[in-house]
C-alpha cells in the first residue's frame, strides 16, 4: 500500500495548498450577490433567477431545493460556471467570475469545481482510471502523480480494484463513486452535485450519502441540487428557491442539533 500512502501524501500536500488560499477557516468560497438570470423567449423575458444572494463557506454542506421551474437548474448552471448571470456578481474563491470569457470559465471549472451528475456522466470508452484522469488532463497534469492520486481516490471511495474496468461494467452506485472520485481529482473548492442520487435505489442512495458524510472531515464542501427531502435532510442547510428568488434558508435540525430555524438572509 506504499502507493496509496504516497497518494495520500500528495493529496495532503494539495490540501495544504488549498488551505493557503483560505483567509480564515470560515472562508467564503462561493458567493452570489444579487444574481439575475433572464432568458429571452421570443418577445417575453423569462426571469429564471431574480436577485438571488447566498454564501457557501468552506466545509459547508448545502442543498438547494424547490419545485420545478423555481430556478434550481439555472442556479446549478451558474454555480458550475457553465453559464453567466445577466446581472449581479458570482464570486468563486473571492474572485468575480460573472464576466469571464469562455476559456477563463473553463479554467475555473477545471480548477475550482468538482461536478457530480445525476446520470454519473462517465465517458464510456475510457477505463475508470482514464475517467479519473480527465480533469487533470486539461490542466496538463497527467502522469505518475495523477495516477497515484486516482488510485488513492478510487481507494477512498471504495473502488480500488476497479481501475481497469469500463464504466458500463460497474453498477450505478459504483459509477457514481467513480464520478465522486473524479470530482475530487482537481482538489476543487466545492463539489457541485446535481441530483447525485436521483438514478439510484434507496439503499445505494444511502451509501452515496454516507460517502459524502465520510468525505467531509477531509474539508470537502458540498453543494447539492435536489428535490428529494430525504437527501436534503442529510445536509447542514437547505436553500429553498421559489419563482427565481430565495424563499428561505433552513438549518437542518439533525445537523445543527436544534429545531429547524429560518435564518435571516
Amino acid at each position, binding site marked *: 500500500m506504499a502507493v496509496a500512502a504516497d497518494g495520500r501524501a500528495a493529496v495532503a500536500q494539495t490540501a495544504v495548498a488549498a488551505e493557503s488560499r483560505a483567509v480564515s477557516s470560515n472562508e467564503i468560497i462561493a458567493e452570489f450577490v444579487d444574481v439575475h438570470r433572464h432568458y429571452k423567449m421570443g418577445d417575453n423575458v423569462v426571469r429564471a433567477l431574480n436577485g438571488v444572494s447566498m454564501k457557501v463557506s468552506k466545509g459547508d454542506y448545502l442543498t438547494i431545493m424547490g419545485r420545478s421551474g423555481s430556478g434550481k437548474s439555472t442556479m446549478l448552471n451558474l454555480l458550475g460556471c457553465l453559464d453567466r448571470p445577466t446581472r449581479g456578481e458570482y464570486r468563486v474563491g473571492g474572485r468575480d467570475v460573472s464576466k469571464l470569457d469562455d476559456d477563463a470559465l*473553463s*479554467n475555473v*471549472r477545471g480548477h475550482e469545481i468538482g*461536478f457530480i451528475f445525476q446520470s454519473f*456522466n462517465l465517458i464510456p*470508452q475510457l477505463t475508470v482510471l482514464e475517467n479519473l484522469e480527465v480533469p487533470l488532463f*486539461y490542466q496538463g497534469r*497527467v502522469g505518475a502523480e495523477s495516477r497515484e492520486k486516482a488510485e488513492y481516490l478510487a481507494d477512498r471511495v471504495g473502488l480500488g480494484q476497479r481501475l481497469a474496468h469500463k464504466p458500463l461494467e460497474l453498477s450505478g452506485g459504483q459509477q457514481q463513486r467513480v464520478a465522486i472520485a473524479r470530482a475530487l481529482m482537481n482538489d476543487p473548492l466545492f463539489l457541485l452535485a446535481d441530483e447525485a442520487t436521483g438514478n439510484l435505489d434507496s439503499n445505494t442512495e444511502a451509501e452515496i450519502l454516507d460517502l459524502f458524510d465520510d468525505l467531509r472531515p477531509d474539508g470537502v464542501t458540498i453543494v447539492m441540487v435536489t428535490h428529494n427531502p430525504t437527501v436534503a435532510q442529510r445536509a447542514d442547510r437547505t436553500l429553498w428557491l421559489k419563482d427565481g428568488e430565495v424563499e428561505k434558508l433552513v438549518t437542518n435540525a439533525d445537523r445543527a442539533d436544534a429545531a429547524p430555524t429560518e435564518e435571516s438572509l
Partner: protein
Amino acid sequence: MIRDTWRIVRLGLKSLMLHKLRSALTTAGILFGVASVIAMLAVGEGAKQDALERFQDMGVTNLIARSKKPAETATSNSQSLWSALSYGLLYAEADLIQASLPTSVVARVREAKRPMIRGEHFHTSIIVGTEPSFLELTNMQVREGRWLGDIDDRRLANVCVLGATLTRLLFPLENPMDQTVLIGDDDRYRVVGVLSEQGRTAGAGSTPYDECMFIPLHTHQRRFGDVNTTRSGGSFSRERVELAEVKVKMPSSEDVAAGAQVIRDLLAQRIEETGDVLVTVPLELLKQEEESKRMFNIVLAVIASISLLVGGIGIMNVMLATVTERTREIGIRRALGAKKKHVVQQFLVEAGVLSALGGVVGVTLGVGLPFLITTWFAQKTIILPQHVMLAFSISAAVGVVFGLYPAWRAANMDPVEALRHE
C-alpha cells in the same frame, strides 16, 4: 507534450474503435484516393521516362533530315517506264548543311534493302552506308572489333560492321570476326566489327539498327548506286535517292533550336513544296511530349483529387455523426475544464487519425498497384518517394480540413445543452 499528443491520438483511436465498421468504411474512401494518386503519378512518371528514353535514343542534341517518298502526283504517274522518280536529300545539300553549321558533326546515311547470305543463313535487311561520325551521333557501342574508318571509305573497302541481332541471325554459332557476308551474287564484305545490343526502336526507317549492316558511305554508293529498282507484281518502279538521311549533332542542346532553323531554311523548298524531306528534332518532340504528358498528369491529378475529395466528404459526414452522438461526452469534458480548443483538438485528431490510417493503407496499396499495372498492361511505372509523401500528406490534410467544421461545431456547443443531451 509528446505524451499528451500520444494520449490524444490514443483517445482518438479508442473512439474510432467504438464504430469499427463505420470507421473502416470511411477510411476506405481515403485509402482508394491515396492509392489512386500514387498509382496515377507512377504511371505518369513511367510514361514520361519512357518518352524521355525514346527521344534520348535519337539523341537530344541531334537533328535528323530524312528523305521520304513524296505523295504520288500527276507528274510522277506520267513518267515513262524507265525513267526514275527522283527525290530526297542530295550530297550537295548535305555539304551545304555542314558548311552552314560548322560547329556540328554531320553523318550522311544511305540505305538499301538487300538479302544477306552467310552459308545457309539468310536474312533480308537494311544495309546502311555511312561515315565514321555516325557512331558518335547514334551513341552506339562496338562490342568486338572496330567501327568503320575514313580509310575504309577512301579505299572503297568491302568491310562491314554488324548490328547485334543481325550477327545472331547470320552467325548463330561462329565468331563473325573476319568472316564474310555475301550480298547479291558476288559481293563479299569482311566483318570488322560487331555492335553491342542497342535495344532501341530508332534505326533505318522501321528497321532497328540492331538488325542493320553498316558499310562505308562511298562503298555503298559505288556498289548499289543511286537508282534503286523494285519489282512489284508485273511492274517496275525506279527511284533515285542520293541520301536517305543526314544526321546532324549540335554541340549542345542550347544550339538545337538555331540549328533546326538553319536546316529548315536550307531545305524549306523540299519540306514545304515537294514534300520529300522530313526534318525531325528529337528535342522538340521531347518537349511536345513533355507538354502533353503534363496535361495528362494534370487530368490524372484532378481525377485523383476528386476521389480524395469524396473521401474527405465521407470523413466530414462521419465526424458530424460522431459529434452529434457524443454531444454528452463533449458536455462532460467541458464541465471538467476542457476549453474549446481542447474539444477542437480532440475531434481534429480523430479525423486526422481516421484519414492517416487510410493514408497508410493507401500508400501500401498505391505502391503495390503500379506493379500490377506494369505486369498486366506493360506500362512502365515509376514510384517517386516524393509522390508517396505527397499523397500521404494530402490524405492527412484532407482529414484535418474536413474535420475542421465538425470539430468547430463540437467546440461551440453550449455546455449546458450538451450535458442535457440524451
